[in-house]
């Protein structure tokens, strides 16, 4: 570099020109990249921001006039409980999905690709079945005269059938099953990229396998855990079919209330305001989370 500046003492204008051209080319490239993303961007603006804006607008209209009535109505213990129940169930399912999904994803990440691939097919298989069918299948398995209770009674483990469905237990089991792939997929992708030389180095430095795992592997796997957890949590917030069918009326989630308002009473305003509040709480939670951790690292950026 020094050699170059030495050999071109009089050419002050040349690097300047070069820089300008480079900068212009850079800008052009950025623009072209942006142009490539334009269709997707347009789609998002039209299909996401449009409806959300419309939703927001509807929630502020009562009997054709501007009004906050839909929001005031929600300021009651019942609505508070519905929201709190929704978030509690979502959190519970997310926690269970981590507990069940992590060991599986870990195992898959350590196995040879071929076997891992086979296991991945097993994880993805339920995706090819309709959500409704899977939910009904759980009903058949979990009910009083269902397979699980029959088997447990038949083998003498229990005497009276367990209440596994038409309550919170059934809802959580059903939701966990549906959410598990959404936890395992990002987790597996992230675990597979962790360089195992780190583990060997840890062993070299005298760490026991358990110590090496907790101090080296586990922290590196956290972004994957967070990515899966966020995906599962957000999906849980909007789940409708499973709690409606497996909850036996004892579980009320916001999505069910939205459906009731929209389909039963044709009260779009009330339904919209519920959607807006749910969205707002979720955004605030994400913001808090992003303050605590660096959210972009979870999705492989940064």
């Amino acid at each position, binding site marked *: 570099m020094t050699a170059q500046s030495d050999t071109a003492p009089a050419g002050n204008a040349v690097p300047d020109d070069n820089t300008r051209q480079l900068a212009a080319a850079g800008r052009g490239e950025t623009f072209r990249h942006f142009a490539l993303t334009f269709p997707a961007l347009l789609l998002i603006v039209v299909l996401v921001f449009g409806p959300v804006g419309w939703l927001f607008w509807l929630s502020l209209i009562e009997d054709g006039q501007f009004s906050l009535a839909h929001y005031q109505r929600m300021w009651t213990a*019942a609505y508070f*409980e519905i929201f709190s*129940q929704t978030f509690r169930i979502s959190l519970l399912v997310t926690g269970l999905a981590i507990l069940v999904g992590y060991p599986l994803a870990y195992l898959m990440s350590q196995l040879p690709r071929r076997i891992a691939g086979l296991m991945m097919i097993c994880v993805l298989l339920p995706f090819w079945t309709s959500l409704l069918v899977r939910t009904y299948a759980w009903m058949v398995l979990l009910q*009083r*005269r269902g397979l699980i209770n029959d088997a447990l009674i038949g083998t003498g483990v229990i005497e009276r059938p367990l209440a596994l469905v038409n309550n919170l237990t059934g809802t959580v089991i059903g939701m966990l099953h549906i959410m598990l792939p959404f936890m395992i997929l990002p987790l597996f992708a992230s675990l597979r990229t962790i360089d195992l030389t780190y583990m060997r180095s840890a062993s070299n430095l005298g760490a026991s396998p358990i110590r090496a795992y907790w101090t080296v592997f586990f922290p590196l796997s956290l972004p994957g855990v967070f990515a899966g957890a966020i995906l599962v949590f957000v999906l849980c917030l909007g789940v409708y079919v499973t709690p409606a069918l497996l909850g*036996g*009326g004892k579980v009320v989630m916001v999505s069910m209330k939205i459906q009731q308002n929209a389909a039963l009473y044709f009260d779009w305003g009330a339904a919209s305001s519920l959607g807006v509040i749910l969205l707002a709480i979720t955004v605030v939670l994400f913001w808090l989370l992003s303050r605590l951790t660096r959210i972009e690292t979870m999705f492989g950026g940064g």
Partner: protein
Amino acid sequence: MKRIVATAIAASAGLCAAPLHAEGSLTYVSWGGNYQQAERDAFLDPIEDELGITIREETYTGVHEVRAQVLSGAVTWDIVDLGGFECAQGQAEGLFEELDWNVVSTEGLDDNAWSDTWVSILYYSTVLAYNPEALEKAPTNFTDFWDVENFPGRRALYNEAPTMLEAALLADGVPKDELYPLDLDRAFAKLEEIKPHIDAWWDSGAQSIQLLADGEVDMLPIWNGRIEVLREEGFPVEIVWDQGTLSVSCVAIPKGAPNKDLAMKAINLMISPEIQANLPQYINYGPANALAFETGKIPEDKIATSPSAPDHLKVQAVISPSYWGERLTELDERWDAFMLK
């Protein structure tokens, strides 16, 4: 030739006075499916013959579409078929024409089954059903359903305030004609009592029969139309009419309907005993007009299963659309609070 003359006479007569058989047409809107087909066969065909008119049919999804038509001032429908609560809501919002009681006769209708702008055209029941093979002692009404000591068994209830508040009050001994206005605190207190013993709360008719068929519960309130489905599958099910509740479907004329006067005449025929008596042949709903059962047109086997047959009507309460129409949202929220407690 005859027809041309008749037309000429009718045309000239039309200049000075309205002809006896008004050449005209009406548009009737309902919910489609075999429900609307039954209405066509039982009600609309005989009305067309009687009035010498044609009735066009359309389908829709509820009172919000009527609201949209009326508010935009472009009303194309003459008669709309709605759920009882929607009729009451629509009336409160001023969406319907007032009915002319010189044209429409409500003789034979229950007092809860009509109001200023709408009349009921049919009933369906929410009755207590049970599996006789699963229970030692069969319940005879909702009072027994609430008596968990003497009537052991697994129970479900409907997850909605309308009909369930009434069932609770009937179970608590309130006479059926003194239900309204509902004693809400008493009703919710009574429900609070049974809540720990309820194994499931159903939301859809399909779910209610599923619960019984799978043996998930042994007794529950159910819509009368669903019982046949269970029986056809050979499932043991019995129902008790005592303390059941009757809900209505009703008709109204949207404000600004193009053929308001003709619609009024058609509605009068629709609720007349003779035409009402056709209904049980086509669908398992009950005629709204009690006099239909005196026409002799309804076969015995249909009377035995009809939700509004005289023997069944006298032991059931008619749900008041007027009461619920105004309070649905409010009571729905109180129901949620009760469920979440």
